C-alpha cells in the first residue's frame, strides 16, 4: 500500500476516495489522507460511530456517495490482498451493526434486521464487481484478479442465500411446506438478481474471447497465405536479381495470384469464358515472361466451341509472346448471345501472313485450322511496325449467355 501518495497536489486539497489501500470504498483512506491522520483512527472512528445509532454507517455511505474517486490513482497498481481484508472488515461492520440494533431494539425486529443487513451487504459486494471490472479494464489487469473476484462473488451469494433463507424460514415462521417452497423461490430469485452482474460479465468475456479467437484465426490465415505466396516469391526474386526476365515473370505471376485472392475470392477457375481466357493468359505469361492484359466483356459457361476458341487464343498468345519481344500483349474478348469474338494483339515487328512458310504450323494449324474445324473464323492483320492482331470469331448455336 502506498501511504505516501497524497492527493493534495493543488492549492485546495479536495477529498478523494482512494482506490489503493482501501478496505471498502476508500473513504477512510481518503479521509485519512485529507486530514493527515493515520487511517486506523479514521476507521475506528467510523466503527464507534456505527455503534452509535448507526451514524457511522450513514456517514460512510454519504462520503462514498459524494467523494469522487482520486483521479491521480488511475495508474497505481492494484492491491491484491484487499479482497480478504475487505471481507473481514465487512464482517466486523455487519456484526457491529447487528449488535447495535440488537442492543437498542430500535423498533426493528432484530430477527428481520439480521437477514436484511446480510442481504444488503451481499448485494453491495456483488454489484461492486461491475464497477471493479470497468476499472480493471482501464488498468489492463491480468487474469489473476479473477480468483479474488470469484471469491467475492461466492461470498456475496452465500450471504444472500443465508439472509433470504433466514427471512422466510427463521423469524417469520411460516406454516409448513408452502413456506419452505416460497423460501426456496425467494432464495433462487435472490441468487439470480444478485449474480446478475457476474453472469453479464461471463457473457461479455465469452463474446470477447470468441471475437478474439476469430480475429486470430483470420490473421493466421492471412499470415499463412502471405508466407506461402508473397514471401516465397520475394525470396525467389532475390535469388534471381541477375535475371530481369525471371524477376518480371515472378512478380507478375505473384501479382496475379494475390489479385485473385484479394478481389475474387469466390471465383471458380475455368468455369467460364472469362476465367478460362485469364487462365490461358496467365499460363503464357508464366511460360514466356511477357505481360498480357485481358479484357472481357460479357461472360458465359464454357462449351466445346468456346474451349476451341480458348485454345486458339492461347496459341495466338504464345505466338505473340515468341515474336513480339517485350512489348505488351492485349487480349480483348466479347461474349455476345450469338457470337464470341477474341482479339489478340501485340506490338511487335509484325509479319506478312502470306509469307509464313508452310512448315511453320503454330499459327496455321493451331489457330486458323482449329477455328475452321469448329465452324469459326480467324483473321490475321499484321504490318511492319503496327504489330499483329489475330481475330477469332466463333458463332454460338445455343443462347446460354449469363
Amino acid at each position, binding site marked *: 500500500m502506498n501511504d505516501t501518495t497524497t492527493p493534495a497536489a493543488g492549492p485546495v486539497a479536495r477529498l478523494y476516495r482512494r482506490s489503493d489501500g482501501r478496505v471498502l470504498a476508500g473513504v477512510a483512506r481518503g479521509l485519512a489522507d485529507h486530514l493527515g491522520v493515520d487511517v486506523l483512527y479514521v476507521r475506528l472512528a467510523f466503527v464507534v460511530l456505527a455503534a452509535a445509532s448507526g451514524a457511522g454507517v450513514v456517514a460512510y455511505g454519504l462520503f462514498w456517495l459524494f467523494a469522487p474517486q482520486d483521479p491521480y490513482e488511475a495508474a497505481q497498481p492494484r492491491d491484491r490482498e484487499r479482497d480478504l481484508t475487505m471481507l473481514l472488515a465487512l464482517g466486523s461492520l455487519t456484526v457491529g451493526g447487528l449488535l447495535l440494533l440488537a442492543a437498542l431494539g430500535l423498533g426493528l425486529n432484530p430477527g428481520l434486521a439480521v437477514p436484511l443487513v446480510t442481504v444488503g451487504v451481499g448485494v453491495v459486494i456483488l454489484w461492486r464487481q461491475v464497477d471493479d471490472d470497468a476499472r480493471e479494464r482501464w488498468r489492463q489487469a491480468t487474469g489473476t484478479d479473477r480468483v479474488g473476484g470469484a471469491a467475492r462473488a461466492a461470498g456475496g451469494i452465500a450471504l444472500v442465500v443465508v439472509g433470504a433463507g433466514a427471512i422466510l424460514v427463521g423469524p417469520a415462521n411460516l406454516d409448513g411446506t408452502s413456506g419452505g417452497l416460497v423460501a426456496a423461490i425467494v432464495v433462487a430469485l435472490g441468487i439470480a438478481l444478485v449474480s446478475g452482474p457476474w453472469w453479464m460479465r461471463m457473457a461479455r468475456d465469452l463474446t470477447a474471447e470468441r471475437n478474439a479467437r476469430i480475429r486470430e484465426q483470420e490473421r493466421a490465415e492471412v499470415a499463412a497465405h502471405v508466407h506461402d505466396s508473397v514471401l516465397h516469391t520475394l525470396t525467389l526474386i532475390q535469388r534471381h536479381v541477375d535475371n530481369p526476365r525471371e524477376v518480371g515473370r515472378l512478380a507478375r505471376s505473384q501479382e496475379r495470384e494475390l*489479385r485473385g485472392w484479394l*478481389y*475474387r475470392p*469466390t*471465383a471458380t477457375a475455368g468455369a*467460364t469464358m*472469362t476465367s478460362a481466357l485469364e487462365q490461358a493468359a496467365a499460363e503464357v505469361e508464366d511460360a514466356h515472361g511477357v*505481360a498480357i*492484359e485481358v*479484357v*472481357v*466483356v*460479357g*461472360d458465359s459457361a464454357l462449351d466445346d466451341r468456346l474451349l476451341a476458341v480458348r485454345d486458339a487464343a492461347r496459341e495466338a498468345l504464345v505466338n505473340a509472346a515468341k515474336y513480339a519481344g517485350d512489348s*505488351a500483349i*492485349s487480349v*480483348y474478348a*466479347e461474349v455476345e448471345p450469338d457470337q464470341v469474338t477474341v*482479339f489478340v*494483339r501485340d*506490338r511487335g515487328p509484325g509479319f506478312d501472313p502470306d509469307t509464313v512458310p508452310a512448315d511453320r504450323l503454330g499459327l496455321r494449324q493451331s489457330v486458323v485450322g482449329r477455328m475452321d474445324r469448329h465452324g469459326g473464323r480467324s483473321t490475321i492483320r499484321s504490318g511492319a511496325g*503496327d504489330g499483329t*492482331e489475330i481475330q477469332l470469331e466463333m458463332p454460338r448455336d445455343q443462347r446460354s449467355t449469363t
Partner: protein
Amino acid sequence: MTDDQRSEPTSPQAASRSGPVRVVLVDDHRMFRSGVRAELGDAVEVVGEAEDAEQAVTVITATRPDVVLLDVHLPGGGGRAVLSAVVGQLPDVRFLALSVSDAPEDVIAVIRGGARGYVTKSITGPELAAAVRRVADGDVVFSPRLAGFVLDAFAATTDVATVDEDLDRLSQREREVLRLIARGYTYKEVGKALFISVKTVETHVSAVLRKLQLSNRHELTRWANARRLV
C-alpha cells in the same frame, strides 16, 4: 461541374499551354510516388505530393495543378473524397485516376466522381506521361480495361426495359470506338481504323465519359455489384 468540364477544351488556358504540365501526385505509398516521379521525368513538373485525402485537398488547393494523379485507395475516404471536395471548387484541375485495383466498382466510382480518366499502375512511364498530357489538354483517357468495363456496363443496362434516354445508351459509333480501345488501339489507330480524325475519336470518348458520369446511377451500380460477384 460537367458543364464546366465540357467547355474546358476550348478555354484559353488549355489552348495556350506552354511548358511542362504541372502535376500533383496523390498516393499513400511514398515509394510509388517517387517511382512515378522518376518515370515521368522531365515530361511534367511535379509541384506537390500528398499521402491522404485531407492533405491532397490542401496541396491541390494551394498549388492549383493542371492534373492530379489520384490513387483510388487513400486513407481518409479514398480518391472519391478528394474528388468531391475539389471538383466543384476548382474546375480547372483535372484528375487522372491511378489504381492497382481492377475492381469495377472502384473504377466506375472515381469516373463518376469526376476523374477524366483511369489507368492501372502497371502503365509504363511514357504511356503515363502521354496520359497526363492528354488529360491536361482536356481530353479523356480510357484504358482498355476501362473501355471494357463501360461496354459491359452499358450492354447490361440495355437489357433493362427502362432505357429510353440517350444517356443510358451508347451510340453505334461510340461502341465501335470503345471496342477498338479495349483491343489495345491508341486513339490514332482507332481513327485510322474507322476513317475518322483523332479529334473525332476524342469527342466520342468524351461523350462516353459524360454518359458514364450522368447516366442512371442505379443501373451502373447494380452492374458493378453484379460484376464483383461473378
